[in-house]
């Protein structure tokens, strides 16, 4: 540890602390403003009098949001999506990564399989063909359209595979000699030893599902099926009151500025809840993606 007590060094330190504090506050200021608006009375909010502290403090806007059948339905669709989509992702990531983590001697054809997945990651068929495929499979307006197309996140498979490769081979070899099958080796050796990596990928998959909205926009032609972020778009971005399947009066009510703020905050809260866990894990998650010899 260096103790540099020169005047310049002390000046540098103070400048650094002030600059970083200012920058960090600037990052959160917009969110703080919306939070203040969402907790304010509707008149001061609409009139633009609220800055970073609520005026006429009230929870009415949140009551209004949680009392709206349209909003609650979209919220529940999102919850269903996160639960089913994330589980599907994790099961498929583990099942796909395990064979790919073997050497071509243990898993013949590994080289072909790995290129099959890598090429699928690098070349994108594009939006229109993907949409036409989902439609031709009859998935429009089903939960399947939101969770099946990205059921195998290939980059996560590669991260998981690299993690599996670091599991000491001796454990596996002795288990196999004792007659254990690959199912048992995966379940009793690999999964318990990879829990931090699995936790990281689970959190990231869940955040992605919660935040996704574009697929909902194109695959849900009946707007009553919108997941929450997609529904939020019609309220806070589009102001489109002619949506099919949504009660226009309900939408009109939800478009009030303070209530819009409340909806933005409600969409943010689940992220804030998992955020401490995310932060604990994502450093190790990033390490997973680092250099492989």
């Amino acid at each position, binding site marked *: *540890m*260096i103790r*540099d007590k*020169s005047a*310049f*060094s002390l000046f*540098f330190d103070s400048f*650094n602390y002030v*600059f*970083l504090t200012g*920058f*960090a506050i600037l*990052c959160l200021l*917009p*969110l703080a*403003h*919306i939070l203040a608006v969402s907790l304010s009375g509707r008149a001061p909010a609409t009139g633009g009098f609220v800055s970073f502290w609520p005026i006429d403090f009230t929870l009415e806007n949140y009551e209004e949001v949680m009392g709206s059948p349209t909003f609650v339905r979209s919220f529940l669709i999102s919850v269903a999506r996160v639960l089913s989509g994330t589980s599907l992702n994790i099961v498929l990531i583990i*099942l*796909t990564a*395990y*064979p*790919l983590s073997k050497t071509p001697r*243990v*898993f013949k054809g590994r080289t072909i*399989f790995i290129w099959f*997945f*890598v090429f699928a990651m*690098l*070349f994108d*068929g594009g*939006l*229109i*063909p*993907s949409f036409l*495929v989902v*439609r*031709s499979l009859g998935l429009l307006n089903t939960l399947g359209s939101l969770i099946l197309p990205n*059921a*195998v996140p290939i980059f996560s498979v590669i991260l998981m595979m690299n993690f599996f490769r670091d599991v000491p081979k001796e454990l596996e070899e002795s288990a*196999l000699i004792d007659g254990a099958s*690959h199912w048992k080796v995966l379940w009793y050796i690999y999964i318990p030893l990879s829990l931090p990596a699995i936790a990281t990928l689970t959190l990231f998959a869940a955040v992605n599902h919660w935040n996704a*909205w*574009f697929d909902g926009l194109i695959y849900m032609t009946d707007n009553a099926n919108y997941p929450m*972020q*997609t529904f*939020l778009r019609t309220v*806070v*971005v589009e102001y489109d009151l002619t949506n099919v399947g949504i009660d226009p009066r309900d939408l009109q009510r939800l478009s009030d500025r303070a209530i*819009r703020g409340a*909806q933005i905050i409600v*969409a*943010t809260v689940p*992220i804030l809840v998992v955020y401490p866990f*995310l932060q604990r894990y994502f*450093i190790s998650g*990033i390490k997973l993606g*680092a*250099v*492989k*010899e």
Partner: protein
Amino acid sequence: MPFKQYMKRAWPLYVMIVPGIVFVLLFRYYPMYGVVIAFQDFSPAKGFANSPWIGWENFEFLFSLPEFGRIFGNTLIIAVSKIVLDQIGAIILAILLNEARHILFRRSIQTMIYLPHFLSWIVLGGILLDILSVGGILNQALKQFGIQPQLFLGSNDWFRGTVIMSGFWKSVGFSTIVYLAALTAINPVLHEAAAIDGAGRFRRIWHITLPGIRPTIVLLAALSLGDVLQAGFEQILTLYSPAVYRTGDIIDTYVYRVGLISAQYSLAGAVGLFKSIIGFFLIVLSYWLADRFAGYRIL
């Protein structure tokens, strides 16, 4: 080893990989086959297999459109500006964070600046549309300084700048992670030795810290090449409006409007294929460069 004996042990591996292959075939490879619509007069009733072939007609039409140069230019300008700003900002922030020795302070700052990365463009877009509106808090603040209200999202003078800066807001904090990891790998003995030899703060940053993260900078510069056509589809779709198509319409938003709003599948498919092919070569090139100059491999 005889085949039968091999399979006795290895068959579960093949069972495990089947579901992944089925999903990827269906939702990645089948759409790749679907790019044939770019060479067809596609109609949904006839499908990929039976729509009439028309050769390069869609591409000839596409290249003759005045919008084509515009969306291609906008995409490049926005994407490249974002990459450059984000990387430079991340390097500076990471070095400053690294210089702040107080561990709790550092953690708090990191917690605050990473957060926007985890919020969707609907949430961030909803916030931006509110604070950047004519009556929004930013224009109110500017009024205090006697500045007229600005249309940050509705005017062609501002739109790109707003997109680039709000992209910076979302991504820069998280981009510091890779650099911070590289910084912790620098041996502190180097800093101590330099300090004993009388090197000040700036000299140590310049001669020890920066060279220490040079491989990481090279690596990310190489990898970012794969992103020069990724201007931020979800962000722009959330923030733009017809008034700013001239400066803000990008390839992806164009494909979305032409293909899914106007249902001109073949034309949109041609634009999409054009982007996919260039994007594919850029990614392959970026991975090759990353391997060549920074020894980075994903496999």
